[in-house]
């Protein structure tokens, strides 16, 4: 059966993304890298936390911070996984123009390229959570976790991050710099304002509305609640919301960001064609 343009674009890009993501070294080194990198990045935060709090690992703030940081890996992986493909294909492989000439749905292609980063990100998340549970007493009991909340939240959140990635991909299409600064800037902002490593209460009152407008705030909160329940609700900012209410807000914001993501990408895609930037390489 002939696949639709949507399915063809997505599936072929997923295959390509996985080949690129997993074939850059031999399988043993890839496995070591996949384990060491996330644990090392989590360890930096754990050491800093240990020094600042003088080893208060029993405080609810620790699992809050640890899990927030772990799930934040998805932000970098999915969001920049989608947007980075524009730079990668245009500057490095010099194939973007041929993909544009082909009957490809470009947003679906970019989303497909993000899938491999989601898979490798998921491996990193799993390894880091396991390490937290085994060695740092993160209070996660798999028999008590709310998996019915966890998986739908994870799915909706990943879609939301992919749509944010489309916005950045659009911006990237019309810029010639190849450092991927747009993705880094957005990821940095979300890290501060989404309650990833500290509750929003820590922020000055006038900055908190920024965090409340970010879908990642509700996503991280729901993921924490689904895995460690009451610990996540120990912080007042979102304590007044039930899980269902938070999920509703997350869903609504995801739909909004999907609309924004697709239309922003279309706008920049049009601009890129006008300016002749689909195949322009920066050469610096």
């Amino acid at each position, binding site marked *: 059966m*002939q*696949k639709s*343009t949507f399915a*063809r*674009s997505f*599936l*072929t890009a997923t*295959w*390509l993304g996985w*080949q*690129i993501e997993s*074939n*850059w070294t031999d399988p043993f080194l890839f496995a070591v890298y996949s384990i060491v990198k996330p644990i090392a990045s989590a360890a930096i935060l754990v050491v800093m936390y240990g020094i600042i709090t003088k080893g208060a690992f029993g405080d609810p703030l620790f699992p809050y911070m640890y899990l927030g940081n772990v799930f934040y890996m998805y932000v970098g992986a999915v969001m920049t996984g989608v947007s980075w493909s524009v730079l990668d294909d245009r500057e490095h*492989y*010099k*194939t973007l*123009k*041929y*993909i*544009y*000439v*082909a*009957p*490809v749905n470009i947003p679906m292609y970019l989303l497909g390229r993000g899938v491999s980063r989601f898979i490798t990100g998921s491996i990193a998340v799993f390894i880091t959570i396991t390490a937290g549970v085994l060695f740092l007493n993160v209070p996660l009991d798999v028999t008590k976790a709310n998996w019915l909340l966890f998986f739908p939240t994870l799915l909706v959140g990943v879609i939301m991050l992919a749509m944010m990635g489309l916005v950045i991909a659009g911006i990237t299409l019309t810029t010639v710099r190849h450092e991927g600064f747009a993705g880094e800037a957005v990821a940095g902002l979300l890290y501060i304002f989404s309650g990833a490593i500290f509750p929003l209460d820590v922020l000055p009152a006038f900055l908190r509305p920024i965090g409340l407008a970010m879908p990642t705030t509700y996503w991280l909160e729901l993921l924490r609640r689904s895995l460690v329940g009451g610990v996540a609700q120990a912080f007042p900012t979102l304590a007044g919301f039930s899980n269902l209410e938070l999920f509703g807000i997350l869903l609504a914001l995801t739909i909004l960001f999907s609309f924004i993501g697709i239309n922003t990408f279309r706008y920049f895609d*049009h601009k890129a*064609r*006008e*300016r*002749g930037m*689909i*195949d322009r390489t920066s050469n610096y």
Partner: protein
Amino acid sequence: MENFALQTEGLGRIYKIHGNRKEKAIRKELVALKDVSLEVKTGELFGLLGPNGAGKTTLIKILTTLLAPTSGRGMVAGYDVAQQPQEVRPRINMVSGGESSGYGLLTVRENLWMFSQFYGVPSKEAYRRIDSYLKEIGLTDRAHTKSSDLSTGLRQKMNIVRGFITDPQVLFLDEPTLGLDVGASRDVRRIIREWLAADAKRTLLLTTHYMAEADELCDRVAIINKGQVLACDTPENLKRRLQKDVLFELATSPLNGLPLSALEKLDGVKKATLRESDGRAEIKFMLKEESALAGVINTLTSANVKIQNLTKHEPTLEDVFVDLVGRSMEDEEHVESD
């Protein structure tokens, strides 16, 4: 009604060039294409001939939906490239020469298969076409080599195959033999001819600055310079324009300061171009009549220039270009880059 694979009506493209940070306010406009109107029939092998920077690639970028025109209209397979790009893309493919694009981590076969999937070619048929074209272009032994391990020329061969395996209605080849060795260029030209001959519904637009390539391959040629089409006809008809002229090529010692204009001013000399290298000069003359040659030789010998070789030749597309532009294509490129 005539069946056109490609049509352009008054197509134009202006690039806005921004200055650096210090010159932010300075904006220049570069006219890359100006009022280009062309019609290419289904089944034709149509050539765009011109020096680097003439606007050939810009025209291809517009027709392949990569770039929006700033004026006019372009149609491919009956669809407007600006308004209906989603209808145009399944019907076309494009290959640019002189570049080494491709996913280095994938093998040659994987790269080609992946692109075939974007076009919805069933895998079995895709592999059949890939293997067949790899054999034709002499790349079978590299089918399972990662493309990062290929030389630039071999990567270019891979990309040329990429253009054919999707069996487009209209194939755009932008300088496909640029950087290829003589044998590989010959293979590419053979594949082009065979591909077109196999199906009357296929059309090919080829850009090149190799005159002989255009002459050998193309049914019709448009000579383009500074964004404008100067002439469009079959290579034979274009050359026929010059048949009333007499063309000579002289190989001489260096001109010892004798300006080319001194030769161009002689009675009966229509145009002259000069190329000097390695203590040797090559002068091409377009004369109104053969008797004007005597004046040329007298002028050269008076300036102590030794004549090493004299050849009379039939008009080529290079001569047509010189006739239209006033300079050789190589000189035109130098003028543009200065």
